[in-house]
């Protein structure tokens, strides 16, 4: 999921403050970033459509809050980066410690464990001689 610069700032702000409406967000960014209330409203709307915010109508305004917490969102980002956008099992843009998918069953993992123990025992025996 790719977010624009203002979308990232607004999402971060909502994670830090909790429930807000468009005017409160505008008041926060007006001094530091400028822009208009309309820009903030459309940014909030885009984040809502991307399922990153939830909203509830109160009077004439919407109250927005985060639909996903920061850690879950970062987890999603990590998975996106690692997935190579679904084309192959292993991303050509990333080198990961266990990138080559760990889909061995327990029996197979035990077999590898046995191999390691054998090697360790052989090294110890070699060292004792």
């Amino acid at each position: 999921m790719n977010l624009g610069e203002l979308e990232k700032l607004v999402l971060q702000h909502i994670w830090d403050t909790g429930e807000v409406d468009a005017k409160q967000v505008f008041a926060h960014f007006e001094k530091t970033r400028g822009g208009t209330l309309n820009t903030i409203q459309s940014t909030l709307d885009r984040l809502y459509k991307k399922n990153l915010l939830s909203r509830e109508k109160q009077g004439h305004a919407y109250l927005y809050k985060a639909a996903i917490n920061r850690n879950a969102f970062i987890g999603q980002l990590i998975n996106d980066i690692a997935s190579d956008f679904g084309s192959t099992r292993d991303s050509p843009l990333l080198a990961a410690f266990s990138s080559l998918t760990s889909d061995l069953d327990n029996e197979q993992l035990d077999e590898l464990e046995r191999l390691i123990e054998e090697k360790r025992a052989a090294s110890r025996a070699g060292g004792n001689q």
Partner: protein
Amino acid sequence: MILGYWGLSLNILSIIFVSLCASLIFISVTIYFISNSLNRFQANTKISILWCIGILPWVISLFSVILLVLPELTSKSDTWLSTFLHWHHIYQFEILSWHGASIGVFCIVFFSVCLTKIVKAVKANAQLNQLDFFIQNTNSKQRLTVIESEESRAFTSGLFRPRSYITSGLSAQLTSQEATVVAEHELAHARSYDPLRKYGFSLLAAFFPTFIAQQLNNDFSLALEQAADESVLSTMSDETVIAKTLLKVSSLGQHPTGSMPLSNCHFSTHPLTFRIEYLLNDNKGQSFPILLFFSFSIAAALLSTLSVDLLHHALERLFSH
């Protein structure tokens, strides 16, 4: 009809395309039959061999251009070589001919592959920047950036400025010795610009048939991982500790049964098995087979150039332009 140097340039492009196709076929068939032989080599040798395989079709197509075009350009066009290999009317190019069609296909394939790869790189870079933006606890003094997340992952990404990351979810489950193994492994990836190398190789592999390209990418990825595992050995001499850590991290990253995608990868050919066996094996494998590779390259180059000549003459006869 395009004449003169423009005609010559377009004919050269046509030769490159046909020779590239022929060499890709020959090399793909060879790879298909000798795919497992790569595991006999040292990790760094394997990386070099795979680079050579990726570049070889392009070198061969240049070789074909030299063999087919040079006699036509020089006064020695009646040499024994030109009786076997030659390209008719090198300075004339007919757009509405099979030559024109071959260049059209070449351009479509070449630019679509490049464009797809560039878009992918830009998208990945944007996602990485996004990740950096949302990571709040970045400590610039740390060599490995810790990401607050329950995921169990450690990775290196970034094409020109590779950065290494570990999630707090993984870090919390590792002992200090295991964390050192993971950190050294990732930093080895970053030091050798592995994301960039992987990306560059995937660009070359993209011109091969899909299943061969996937196999090449998997082999390259495995070789990079093995090389990174090997580099950890310089700081931690006990290979069983590295193997154990690898096994542990892989188990932690495992999806719960049911949600896990089915894999058609057999245990004995599974990358994790290869990595652990490679680490535990005292004999890391053979070095670069220079003579064998050189002989294969010459054979493939001659076969490809001959195929270009045969195809050219067969089509000329069939359609008589």
